[in-house]
C-alpha cells in the first residue's frame, strides 16, 4: 500500500482512512486533516461513511487489478443486486470499477465484506469537518444560513470552526453573521469579561437574532454575575429599540403595499362608481375574472389544463414553455386580464346597466344579481376550490434593507399602483377620450347637446373601469389565493376607499387608500389581531364620514340633491 507521500485528493484520503481499521488515531488524524478543505465531495463522502456506505474488501488468491492477494481496499457497491445478491463494486479512491486480473468487473456480496465502521471519536472529528465544510459552502446565502443556525444553537464547541472561518471570509454579510454567531457562542463562556465583550458586540451590531439569548443570559446571571446581567440588559434594550424602528418601517412598508392593493382594486371602482355613479356590485367578480385569466394564461404557458364546465369536459393544450419564457407569462397575463374584464364590462353595461343610469339603487341590486351569476359561472368552470397561481421567480424574492424585509411582490405592487394611477390620470386629463369622459360624467345632457356620443363614451368608460378591475385581479393572483369568491373579500373595502376619498376624485381615492392601508397595518401591529384592526378601521370610517360626509375631496355643485 502506497503511503500518502504525494498530495492526495480528499477522495483518496478518505479511502486511505477507511481501510486503517486498526489505527483509530491515524484515521482521526486523516479525517481532521480535511478540515478547511472546500472540496464539495467531502460532506458527501463523510456522510456516506457515517451511514455505513463503505465496505472493506480483501483481495482473494490471484489478487485484483493493481492489488496483491490479501490487500485491503475500500469499495462502494452499486445498487444492481442480482439473483446471487452480488453487486458491482467500485474502488472508492478512484471511483472506477474493481476488476479482476482478466479485466472483468468484480461483483461482490455485501454480507461477505467488512463494513467500514466509525467510532464515537471519529464521528466527532467528522462533525467538525462537516460543520466547517458547511460554513465554507460556495453559496454565500447558504453559508450565512448555516452560520446563523450555529449561532442560535449556541454550542461553544463550534467556536474554533467559526473563528477559523472569520479570518478568511470575504462576503460582508457572512462576515457580519459570523461575528454575531461568535458573540452568541461566547455568551456561553465561563469568563465574565468574554461574556461582556460578546454582549457589547451584539448590542453594537443590533443583532435581532440575539434578543432571546440576551434575555436568557440576563436572567441566568442576575445573581451570580450582576455586571454581565447589566451588560446583557443594556444590549437587549439597544436591540429592542432597533427592533421597534425596524417594525415601524416594516409596518409602514406593509401598510404602503396594502394601500397599493386597495388602490389597484378601488381605482376601477373610482371610475365606474366615482365618475359614472354606477354601483357595480359585480366589480369584485370582474376582479376575479382578471385573476382567472392570469391562471388560464399561466396554464396555457405550462402544460395546459382540463376544464369541465356543466358536465362537458375538454382539455386546453399548453405551450409547455419552460425557463424564462414560462416565467414571462405574467407579462402576457396583464393585458389579457385587462381585456377579458373589459369585455365582461362591455357586456354588463350593454345588457344591464344602461337601463339603470337614472336608478342608482336599482343598479346596486341588479349588479348584485350579476355578481351571483358570475360567481356561480366561475365556480362551474374552474371548480369551487381555490386554484394555484405561481408567482414568477422575479416576484418571489426579497431584499433586506437594514433588517426590514422588502418582498419583491410588495415592491412590485407599489410600483404597479403608481403606474396605474399615473396612467389613469394621464388618460383622464391629457387625452381627448379623457376629456369626453369628464364631459359626459359632469353633465350628460350638455355633452349630448354638444354632439358627444354619450352612449359610446359610457360603454368605453365602463369598459376601462372594468379593465382596471381585471388588472387588479391579475395582481391579486400573485399575492393571494384565487377562488370564485375572491372579489367578495375586496368589494366592501374598495367601496369604502372610494367613499372616503370623495366620489369623483381620483386623488381622493389615492389619499384614502393610503390612509386606510397604513392605519389598518398599524392597528394590526399594535393590536396583534388583523380582524379587530379591520373592525376598528370600519368604525373609524363611519366616524370619519360624520366629519366629512362627502369624503375627503368634495366635488362642489349647486345641486341640492347632489
Amino acid at each position, binding site marked *: 500500500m502506497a503511503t500518502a507521500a504525494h498530495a492526495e485528493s480528499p477522495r483518496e484520503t478518505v479511502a486511505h482512512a477507511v481501510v486503517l481499521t486498526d489505527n483509530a488515531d491515524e484515521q482521526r488524524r486523516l479525517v481532521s486533516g480535511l478540515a478547511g478543505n472546500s472540496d464539495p465531495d467531502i460532506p458527501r463522502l463523510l456522510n456516506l461513511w457515517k451511514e455505513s456506505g463503505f465496505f472493506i474488501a480483501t483481495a482473494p488468491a490471484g489478487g485484483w487489478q493493481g492489488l496483491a492477494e490479501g490487500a485491503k481496499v475500500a469499495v462502494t457497491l452499486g445498487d444492481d443486486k442480482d439473483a446471487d445478491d452480488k453487486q458491482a463494486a467500485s474502488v472508492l479512491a478512484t471511483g472506477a470499477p474493481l476488476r479482476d486480473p482478466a479485466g472483468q468487473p468484480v461483483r461482490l456480496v455485501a454480507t461477505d465484506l467488512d463494513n467500514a465502521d466509525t467510532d464515537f471519536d471519529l464521528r466527532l472529528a467528522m462533525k467538525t469537518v462537516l460543520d466547517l465544510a458547511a460554513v465554507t459552502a460556495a453559496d454565500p446565502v447558504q453559508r450565512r444560513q448555516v452560520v446563523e443556525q450555529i449561532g442560535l444553537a449556541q454550542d461553544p464547541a463550534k467556536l474554533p470552526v467559526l473563528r477559523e472561518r472569520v479570518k478568511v471570509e470575504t462576503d460582508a454579510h457572512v462576515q457580519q453573521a459570523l461575528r454575531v454567531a461568535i458573540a452568541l457562542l461566547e455568551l456561553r463562556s465561563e469568563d465574565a469579561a468574554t461574556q461582556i465583550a460578546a454582549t457589547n458586540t451584539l448590542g453594537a451590531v443590533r443583532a435581532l437574532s440575539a434578543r432571546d439569548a440576551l434575555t436568557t443570559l440576563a436572567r441566568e446571571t442576575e445573581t451570580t454575575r450582576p455586571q454581565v446581567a447589566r451588560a446583557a440588559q443594556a444590549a437587549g434594550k439597544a436591540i429592542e429599540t432597533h427592533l421597534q424602528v425596524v417594525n415601524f418601517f416594516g409596518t409602514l412598508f406593509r401598510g404602503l403595499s396594502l394601500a397599493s392593493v386597495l388602490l389597484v382594486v378601488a381605482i376601477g371602482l373610482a371610475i365606474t362608481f366615482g365618475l359614472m355613479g354606477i*354601483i357595480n356590485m359585480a366589480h369584485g367578480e370582474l376582479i376575479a375574472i382578471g385573476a382567472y385569466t392570469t391562471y388560464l394564461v399561466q396554464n396555457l404557458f405550462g402544460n395546459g389544463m382540463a376544464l369541465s364546465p356543466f358536465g362537458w369536459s375538454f382539455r386546453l393544450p399548453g405551450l409547455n414553455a419552460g425557463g424564462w419564457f414560462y416565467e414571462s407569462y405574467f407579462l402576457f397575463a396583464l393585458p389579457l386580464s385587462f381585456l377579458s374584464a373589459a369585455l365582461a364590462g362591455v357586456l354588463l353595461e350593454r345588457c*344591464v346597466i344602461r*337601463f*339603470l343610469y*337614472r*336608478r*342608482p*339603487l*336599482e343598479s*346596486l*341590486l*341588479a349588479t*348584485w*344579481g*350579476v*355578481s*351571483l*351569476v358570475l*360567481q*356561480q*359561472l366561475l*365556480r*362551474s368552470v374552474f371548480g369551487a376550490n381555490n386554484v394555484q397561481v405561481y408567482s414568477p421567480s422575479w416576484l418571489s424574492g426579497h431584499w433586506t434593507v437594514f433588517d426590514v424585509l422588502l418582498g419583491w411582490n410588495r415592491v412590485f405592487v407599489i410600483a404597479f399602483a403608481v403606474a396605474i394611477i399615473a396612467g389613469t390620470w394621464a388618460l383622464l386629463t391629457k387625452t381627448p377620450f379623457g376629456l369626453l369622459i369628464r364631459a359626459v360624467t359632469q353633465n350628460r345632457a350638455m355633452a349630448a347637446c354638444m354632439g358627444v356620443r354619450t352612449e359610446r363614451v359610457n360603454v368605453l368608460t365602463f369598459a376601462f373601469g372594468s379593465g382596471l378591475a381585471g388588472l387588479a385581479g391579475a395582481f391579486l393572483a400573485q399575492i393571494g389565493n384565487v377562488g370564485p369568491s375572491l372579489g367578495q373579500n375586496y368589494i*366592501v373595502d374598495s*367601496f*369604502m376607499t372610494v*367613499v372616503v376619498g370623495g366620489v369623483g376624485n381620483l386623488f381622493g381615492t389615492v389619499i384614502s387608500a393610503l390612509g386606510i392601508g397604513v392605519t389598518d397595518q398599524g392597528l394590526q401591529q399594535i393590536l396583534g389581531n388583523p*380582524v*379587530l384592526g*379591520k*373592525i376598528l378601521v*370600519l*368604525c373609524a*370610517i*363611519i*366616524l370619519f*364620514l*360624520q366629519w366629512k*360626509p362627502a369624503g375627503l375631496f368634495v366635488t362642489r355643485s349647486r345641486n*341640492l*340633491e347632489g
Partner: protein
Amino acid sequence: MRRNFSRSELIAVGVIALLGLIVLPALNSAGLISNFAINLWGKYLCYAVLAISVDLLWGYTGLLSLGQALFFSLGGYMLGMHLMLMIGKLGQYKSDLPDFMVFLGYTSLPTFWQPFRSFLFAALMILAVPGLLSGVFGYLAFRSRIKGVYFSILTQALTYAGSLMFFRNDLLMGGNNGFTDFKLLLGLDLRTPGVQRGLFIATVALLLLVYLGCRWLTMTKFGLVQRAVRDSETRVLFSGYAAANYKLFIFVLAAIIASLGGALYVPQVGIINPSEMTPDKSLEAVVWCAVGGRGTLFGPVLGAISVNALKSWATRAYPDSWLIILGGLFILVVLFLPGGIASVPGLLARTMRRRKKSDEPIAAVPATAVSAATEA
C-alpha cells in the same frame, strides 16, 4: 295609497289569521300536515317579517339598508344566549356553561352572560340591542345627511364589521359555529312538535301584528311624511319637517321588527351563526322584497315566501345552478318588473283595459309608489 283598510283587505287578513292561527296548527296536530312543513313555513314567515322591515325602509322611506340581516341575527343571538343557558347540564360537557365556553377553557360564566338566565331580560335585549345599535348608527348617518347609495354602502360595512366580530371566538358568542343544540324554552322541550307548533302560531301572530301595525303607520300623517321623504327629501326639509328624525324613527323601528323576526327564527331553525349576518343575507332579503313588490306591505310577504320556496326546491333539484337562478331572477325583476309580483295584477288589468278601449285615451294611471321611487 289607500288611507284606510278596505273591506277586501280586512277579509284577506282575517282569512290568513284564521288559517295560520287555527286551521294549520289544528291540521298539524291531527297529523294531516307534517311537522316538517309547519317548521318550514314558520321559517318562511320569519323571513317575511324581515322582508317587511326591509320594505318599510326601502319601499316606504327610500332607505336601502343592507344592515337588516345584522339586526335579524342580533335578535336571534339575544334569544340564543338565553337558550344556550337553558341547556344547562344537558350539553355534551355536562357543565352549567355553554359547550363552546367549556371548549375555550372558561370555568365561570362571563358577567355579560349572567342576566341572560332570565327570559324577560333576554326578551328586553331583543328589543334593546338592535334598537340601540340602529339608533346610534342612524343618528350618526342621518345627522350628516348620508343618503342614497352611500347609506347602503355604510350599512353594508356595518354588517360586514358585525359579522367579522361575531366570527371571532373571543367575543364569547360561539365564534364560527354560533349557537345550536338548544333544548328548553320557558321550561318546554323545543324538540317536541307541540312546542314547534306554538312557535309557528307565535310567528303568524307576529307577522299579522307587524303587518297591521305597519299598515296603520303608513296610513297616518307620519306615513305620508315618510313617503314624502322618499320622493323628495329636500322638499320635505324646506317644508319644515325634520326629515332626519323621521328616518331615524323608521330605521330603529325596522331594526326592532327584524330583530323580533330573528328571535322567533332561531328556536325554529335550531341554529344561529355569523353567516346569517353577512351583507349577502341582507341583499337576499332585499331580493324578496323586490320580487314581491316594494311599496306594498303584502308584496314582501309574498316575495319572502315564494323566493324561499323556490330556493328550497332549486337547491335540491339544481344545487349547482341555484345562484344563477336567483341572480337571473333578480336581474329580470329589477329590469323588467320594478313593481314585483304585486304589480302584476295591476299591469294585467291595464293591458286589458287598453285592449278594450283602444280608441279612447287611457286615463292617467296614478303614479304608483314604485315609479315615484324610481324617479327619485
